[in-house]
């Protein structure tokens, strides 16, 4: 009972954050949009400004294109999708996707600290580096750097030259850790709400259509997903009738099924029809609930 009440409080806190600036730090376009696109649309719809930091260049995710062409198309499509969700600016670091472990952690972290101090967001989104069974480790490396940047941006002795030049330390008070719902233990509350982000679900019923339209803009990634799915099913002696002819309408339909299925998985047991799930660090992350009361 107490846990349910606690989770309801966490869910309600989303509305409080809406007025502030949001910065999303992401490894790839399709990943963040599927996991957090609805929550971001909810915030921007309520008046928040949002900035997207793309760390990877998405050069691998295509079907039959060169890495260079893939990166260019994915960047263009990612920016269009972000705009549809109300994101005002997209900053691309341009690091090679699926090679992100070659980027020094501190290099990635310090660039993110710089941006956090410059934009001074109230809310951060980044991939959850503590998620298990997510085979895309780019999300792990970006999440680990972003979590570190969130923590270090508040201390003046990090990036001292920038501090000296007027980029003052900054504390971000709310963080949403996103990840695809693949970790079998993702809904288990941690031992304490203090210093450990807690599971929370966000109702995206009102934002689903907008999220879907944005996801369908990612044509290069979506085609890659559809073709690879068709291929893997055929290797197992199976076929999806919807993919007998892989054209734009089939791909759009597949994207819709994927997002609806994802929202259904995330909403299980929450009372919502369509939801996204996160690990959330808010006021109780820093101050134990007993003191807040």
């Amino acid at each position: 009972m107490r846990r349910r009440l606690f989770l309801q409080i966490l869910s309600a806190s989303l509305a409080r954050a809406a007025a502030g600036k949001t910065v999303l730090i992401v490894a790839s376009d399709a990943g963040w949009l599927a996991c957090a696109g609805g929550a971001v649309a909810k915030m921007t719809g309520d008046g928040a400004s949002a900035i997207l930091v793309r760390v990877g260049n998405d050069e691998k995710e295509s079907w039959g294109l060169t890495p260079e062409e893939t990166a260019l198309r994915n960047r263009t499509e990612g920016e269009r999708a972000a705009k549809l969700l109300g994101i005002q600016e997209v900053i691309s670091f341009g690091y090679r996707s699926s090679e992100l472990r070659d980027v020094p952690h501190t290099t990635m972290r310090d660039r993110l600290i710089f941006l956090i101090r410059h934009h001074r967001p109230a809310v951060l989104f980044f991939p959850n580096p503590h998620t298990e069974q997510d085979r895309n480790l780019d999300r792990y490396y970006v999440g680990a750097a972003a979590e570190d940047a969130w923590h270090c941006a508040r201390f003046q002795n990090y990036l001292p030259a920038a501090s000296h030049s007027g980029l003052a330390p900054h504390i971000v008070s709310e963080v949403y850790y996103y990840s695809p719902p693949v970790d079998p233990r993702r809904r288990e509350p941690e031992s304490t709400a203090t210093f450990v982000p807690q599971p929370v679900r966000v109702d995206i019923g009102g934002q689903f259509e907008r999220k879907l339209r944005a996801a369908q803009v990612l044509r290069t990634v979506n085609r890659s997903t559809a073709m690879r799915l068709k291929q893997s099913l055929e290797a197992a002696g199976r076929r999806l009738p919807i993919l007998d002819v892989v054209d734009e309408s089939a791909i759009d339909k597949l994207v819709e099924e994927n997002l609806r299925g994802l929202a259904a998985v995330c909403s299980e047991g929450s009372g919502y029809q369509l939801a996204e799930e996160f690990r959330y660090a808010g006021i109780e992350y820093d101050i134990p609930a007993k003191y807040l009361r």
Partner: protein
Amino acid sequence: MLRYADSFRMRLLLHLRAYLFIGIFTGGVAGQVQSRLPPGEIPAGKILLVVQPHHDDHTTDYGMGGVIARFVESGYKAYYVRASNDEKDGANSYARNDIINLKETRDGTRILGMEDVISLNWRNDFMNPIPLNELREQLIFLIRKYRPDVVLGHNPWEHYQKNPDHRNVARALVEAYWLAGYDTVHPEHFKLGLKPHAAAHFYEKGRLDWGLGQISNVALELSESQVQKKERAIAAHRNVYHNPGAKRAIQDRLAAMGMHVPELDAVNGDEASDLLLHWWMNWVSRDIGKKAGVKYAEDLYHMDAQDHLPGLKAYIEANARRIP
């Protein structure tokens, strides 16, 4: 004279054996979990690729020797990739350990019915600073060469894994498993006639008793003969596991608790070493079997080629059709 690492390994092994041994005879081991695991089946396919950092990782307490034997008995051709050179493991010089351990890998995997051992020879216990994308490229190459239906390796998310060889090989492998299917990844391989290949299944295994332990989602039942192969496979690694002194250490420890085991008293040190390995592997297989409601089993975490799309799982199950 033993170097520190070697003597440490020996002491660790002695303690571990004593701990497991005492657990076997006193009927309890810390961390036992009794929740029922769903039974798994061997998926249709022909090729199994097992990728591990070390010579003996195919069959240890966290190993999968019984499952490998079951795959082979089901018609699979199986290959073992040893990522490190195992130079630290054993009481010999680095070079000699490397040579002996590789030979014993071949002996052990042959007992399981495997076809070949591919040794990548990365320096043992120096794998934390290696360029992991280079190791991943080697694994992608091997996946494209052997075109496995099933890839089997270590759990990259294992809690409290202290050995960076395990963590890093596992991380490289879980990415190689899916990136091998992308033609945008290492296209230079295609000059040799290789083609992208996405394996249909990935199984991972971690230690049972570290932190929160291995989070498994399937148990594969083992037959008596598969457990016996597993016992013989680990016993083939004599450079590390043959330890006649273990008998005395365990007897001393049990005596301090006012206990003794007649079977152990009746054999010499060499025989006791083999007996302890037999008990160890048999106990592990029985203990996991309890979780699955069968006599013997090994538990694993299984992912198929669609598991990274959790939103489509239900749709695929409802709408996919068999190709006639």
